[in-house]
């Protein structure tokens, strides 16, 4: 079918879809009029039962921890897929870049940018660790903090020091970190099976709400997920940047 025919067919189908969506959305309660019970149940029980103050993280790692296991493994599988697809093919080699990794710079970064990167890298890392650990208390948790933490070493890319970044975080290390995070989360779940009656049950002492070591296994799950997300994203970025900057076809 020609392109015009395809677009015309979609115009018809798209208009119908839009109409159906609007009709379906008319059946929803109007914006702001949320009547759901589940949210109120969580609000009533979670701070008392689990001494957690961030309800979103409590849902993520405690009440709906099984969904999080599934999502973690989606993340893991996607990153494994990227690493597999972007592997070095038979007719490819790494480009020969001059001098040692510490000295090599990809051109273009001014001195001001390099200085800024020097300030950014530890800031991101500290902020990322803070957000991960305070998952159960304030907005934050494994997923958010993991990405912020991964953006730290990535800032070295801004200064053109990509090879130094590769030395700091080689692929084998990133793969190990990613796998360790996934395994740690599963082990915490199995700990629930061993020490409490069911898997993923919160089994550590609960403490007082508002303190760092409260809410049982939630900080631990948060750290496990944070480690996995950091490893996953750094691995993905490294694979793509390798393809763009380092890999070339053998001539």
């Amino acid at each position, binding site marked *: 079918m020609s392109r015009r025919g395809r677009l015309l067919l979609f115009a018809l189908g798209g208009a119908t879809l839009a109409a159906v969506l609007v009709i379906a959305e008319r059946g*929803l309660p109007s*914006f702001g009029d949320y009547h*759901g019970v589940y949210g109120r149940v*969580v609000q009533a029980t979670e701070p008392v039962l689990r001494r957690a103050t961030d*309800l979103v993280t409590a*849902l993520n790692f405690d009440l709906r921890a099984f969904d999080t296991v599934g*999502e973690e493994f989606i993340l893991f599988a996607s*990153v494994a897929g990227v690493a597999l697809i972007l592997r070095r093919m038979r007719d490819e080699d790494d480009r020969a870049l001059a001098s040692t990794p510490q000295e090599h710079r990809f051109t273009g970064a001014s001195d001001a940018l390099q200085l800024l990167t020097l300030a950014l890298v530890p800031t991101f890392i500290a902020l990322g660790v803070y957000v991960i650990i305070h998952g159960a208390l304030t907005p934050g948790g494994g997923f958010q903090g993991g990405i912020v933490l991964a953006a730290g070493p990535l800032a070295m890319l801004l200064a053109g020091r990509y090879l130094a970044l590769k030395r700091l975080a080689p692929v084998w290390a990133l793969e190990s970190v990613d796998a360790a995070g996934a395994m740690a989360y599963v082990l915490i779940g199995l700990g629930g099976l061993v020490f409490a009656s069911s898997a993923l049950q919160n089994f550590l002492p609960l403490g007082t709400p508002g303190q760092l070591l409260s809410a049982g296994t939630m900080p631990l799950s948060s750290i496990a997920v944070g480690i996995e997300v950091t490893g996953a994203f750094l691995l*993905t970025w490294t694979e793509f940047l390798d393809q763009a900057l380092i890999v070339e076809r053998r001539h």
Partner: protein
Amino acid sequence: MSFYPYAVAAWLFVVGLWGIVASENLVRTVLCLTVVQSATYVLLLAVGYRHGGAAPIVADIPVHSRLVDPTVQVLVLTDVVIEATVSALLLALVVQGHKRFGSVDPQQLRALHD
């Protein structure tokens, strides 16, 4: 007027689909997929919103105050992170496909298959 968020979600969904269908470059297809996914985020968060509700964190407000629904936020939160990884997987496929078949045009790739 209170239908506006739902209308925005429906519009983004259809416009994103249009971008996918009309795309001549597979990278563009992946980015339009991002728009389609963001339509679902808008819809979910709009469903869970409550007038006058605060964010679902009871660290410094009384426990029984009026909150927005935390469940939909959990769904959207994990999806934002995982969508980036899945898009990365799709882009890896596009890059390797270009290496092997020499094109990122979906029409040309189909011709090569014949």
